[in-house]
């Protein structure tokens, strides 16, 4: 039994990009329907009101879908990937389990080949995206401070920056002593009350959700406005196929509801916003046996050039308490001292370093970031020395595109609806390894200058694959890219991709603001098309 209906635009995925695009289209009175395989997770469901809040990170709010194993999750085979997948399925997508660090890519990130003869250039520039970064900042709400000399100018931020904290003050002074760059980073965390969203009160684990709505997950920012403007959102809706007509245009999608009932929704345009693994998985399996290479894959690049941002961690241990558990976890300050290319360092492109605070007792005991906490005898003494005494630099490296790093389909493993699983195949290249070594040495120097008594390092953080990029690359040439500069697939012009898949290169910053800016721009291009055809 199946049901059929019609809309103007159908969007697959209600995360950061799907929410932003749907909001923009709905504001322009487009009839838009979004299908989301997960459900709503009300901010009030976040566990910080419970004493065992930390345990949820190991269970129902584990960022790795293979650990979480919720019914709406699909398996992502990770045995051939040096970095494991992290994502969330639900309204708001991975921003539900998000630390909300929100730096922008630099102008040079869009011209990597021209400037450094590696990777490829984007077909759009920073300057094309700048108005959309601003729009996204305004709708999402952004804490921070304008005037960072490492980035082009921007408008004053919605609220002041998150507090530096005790360790942040020490590290800032150390960076001043070294003469290195630092800045209070942009963060999608409000530090003052705005509307029905309360100011962050520094409770700590943003990555578990935010019961005060201070943190700007897409369910809190874009969805209320989208729904108020007439957008329709269907949850527990798993899309299993993209449908084409005889001329090769998309006619809609097929989806399955929670009860197993199959539906078809017809649309003038289909937009995919399923992240850098989910989108290639859907397109590579679309069309079934009749299309062994999937849809929109004439370039052969669908699923290729997977970029994940190798991340290393260095933790400074201080003799005095620095109250590591207090304040938003993931960013107290940011240094982009080594962001732009300087080939004398032994690598091309660069990395950013964000100062992460610490964790609560449980995650500290389990090793947190780069900690060495033994079990058995000595455990409690080590815990005493570390808990509340640490801060960590997370070193995020630009990840150059490599077609051998990819998402493939494994027909032997399927999700609950019988759709084949994705497998991530990914190795860290020598350029990234050189960056990691340089970044760890830089972090050690900063922490030693800041008075840390010891620095602990982790070369590559395995559970760090939140930034899923590059698997449906944007470009002007259909032979070397999957989507055009407006995010339309070259092969199927009314099939649009707006998630991190379209990144031509990765930059060295958290991608969410760029993903949302790209999605807002793609929405405007769709609206321009619509005006032309009216």
């Amino acid at each position, binding site marked *: 039994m199946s049901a059929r209906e019609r809309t103007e635009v159908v969007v697959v995925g209600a995360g950061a990009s799907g929410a932003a695009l749907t909001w923009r289209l709905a504001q322009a009175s487009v009839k838009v329907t979004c299908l989301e395989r997960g459900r709503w997770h009300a901010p009030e469901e976040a566990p910080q009101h419970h004493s065992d809040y930390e345990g949820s990170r190991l269970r129902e709010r584990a960022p790795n879908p293979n650990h979480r194993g919720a019914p709406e999750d699909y398996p992502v085979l990770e045995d051939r990937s040096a970095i494991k997948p992290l994502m969330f399925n639900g309204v708001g997508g991975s921003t539900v389990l998000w630390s909300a660090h929100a730096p922008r890519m630099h102008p040079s990130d869009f011209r990597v080949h021209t400037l450094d003869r590696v990777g490829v250039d984007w077909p759009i520039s920073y300057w094309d995206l700048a*108005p959309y970064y601003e729009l996204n900042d305004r709708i999402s709400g952004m804490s921070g401070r*304008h005037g960072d*000399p490492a980035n082009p100018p921007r408008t004053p931020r919605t609220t002041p920056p998150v507090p530096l904290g005790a360790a942040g003050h020490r590290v800032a002074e150390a960076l001043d002593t070294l003469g290195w760059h630092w800045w209070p980073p942009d963060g999608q965390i409000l530090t003052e009350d705005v509307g029905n969203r309360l100011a962050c009160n520094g*409770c700590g684990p943003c990555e578990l959700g935010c019961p005060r709505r201070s943190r700007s997950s897409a369910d809190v920012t874009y969805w209320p406005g989208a729904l108020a403007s007439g957008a329709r959102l269907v949850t527990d809706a798993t899309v299993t196929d993209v449908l084409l007509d005889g001329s090769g245009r998309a006619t809609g999608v097929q989806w399955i509801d929670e009860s197993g009932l199959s539906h078809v929704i017809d649309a003038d345009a289909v937009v995919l916003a399923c992240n850098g693994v989910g989108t290639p998985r859907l397109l590579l399996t679309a069309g079934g046996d009749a299309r062994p290479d999937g849809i929109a894959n004439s370039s052969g690049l669908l699923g290729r050039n997977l970029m994940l941002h190798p991340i290393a961690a260095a933790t400074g241990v201080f003799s005095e308490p620095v109250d590591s558990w207090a304040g938003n976890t993931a960013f107290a300050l940011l240094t982009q001292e080594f962001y732009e290319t300087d080939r004398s360092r032994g690598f091309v492109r660069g990395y950013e370093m964000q100062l992460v605070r610490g964790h*609560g007792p449980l995650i500290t005991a389990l090793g947190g970031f780069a900690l060495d906490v033994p079990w058995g005898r000595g455990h409690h003494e080590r815990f*005493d020395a570390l808990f509340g005494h640490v801060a960590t630099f997370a070193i995020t490296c630009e990840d150059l595109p490599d077609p051998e790093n990819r998402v493939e389909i494994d027909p032997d493993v399927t999700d609950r609806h019988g759709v084949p699983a994705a497998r991530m195949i990914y190795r860290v290249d020598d350029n990234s390894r050189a960056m990691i070594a340089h970044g760890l040495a830089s972090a050690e120097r900063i922490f030693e200058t800041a008075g840390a008594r010891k620095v602990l390092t982790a070369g590559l953080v395995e559970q760090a694959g939140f930034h899923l990029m590059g698997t449906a690359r944007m470009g002007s040439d259909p032979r070397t890219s999957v989507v055009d500069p407006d995010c339309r697939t070259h092969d199927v012009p009314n099939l649009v991709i707006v998630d991190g898949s379209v990144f031509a290169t990765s930059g060295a910053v958290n991608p969410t603001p760029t993903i949302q800016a790209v999605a807002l721009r793609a929405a405007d291009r769709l609206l321009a098309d619509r005006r032309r055809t009216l």
Partner: protein
Amino acid sequence: MTAADGDGHTRRRLNAAASTLLPGNADWPDGGTLGLADRMIARAAGTPRFRAALDEFLRQPDEGLSPEAGSAARDEAMAALQARDPGVFGLLLMVVYDAYYTHPDVLALISARTSTRPGPPQPEGHRLPLLAPRDLTRVQQSGVRWRDDGEPAARAVRDAQVADPDRVWSEEEIASWSE
């Protein structure tokens, strides 16, 4: 024997594991004396990977890991499990630590030893002082450092930023960069 059985022997095995992993000292309670088994079983019940790991642990031969074994023998047996099956061991560690470090007695102890509160982080949160603008003076005076990408807007924007690093820009001005 599985975690779902929850019988006396299962509980003693799990408490012995907690005692081995978290033996306590003059300041901290032994994991076994806190009776963590019920908390471990409850956590495993809702999480398939934890349940499978506990079941696998309980299937291990009693020798060495049993409550009756001495602490040295249990240390040795646990180290052998860690070497033989790091996946199961890692998950067992998570379940034991989850039960211990969220136990009210342990949270109260941590609060007494540090400046944390014994309860959950909400609703009080933690108040930290905001950044003072003067803290940024040195960085801002160090000069514009983003790389010119050769696009038409870059030079003009850069020159304006050099002239006034703290200038307040409007959305309309920024939108004009792409025109």
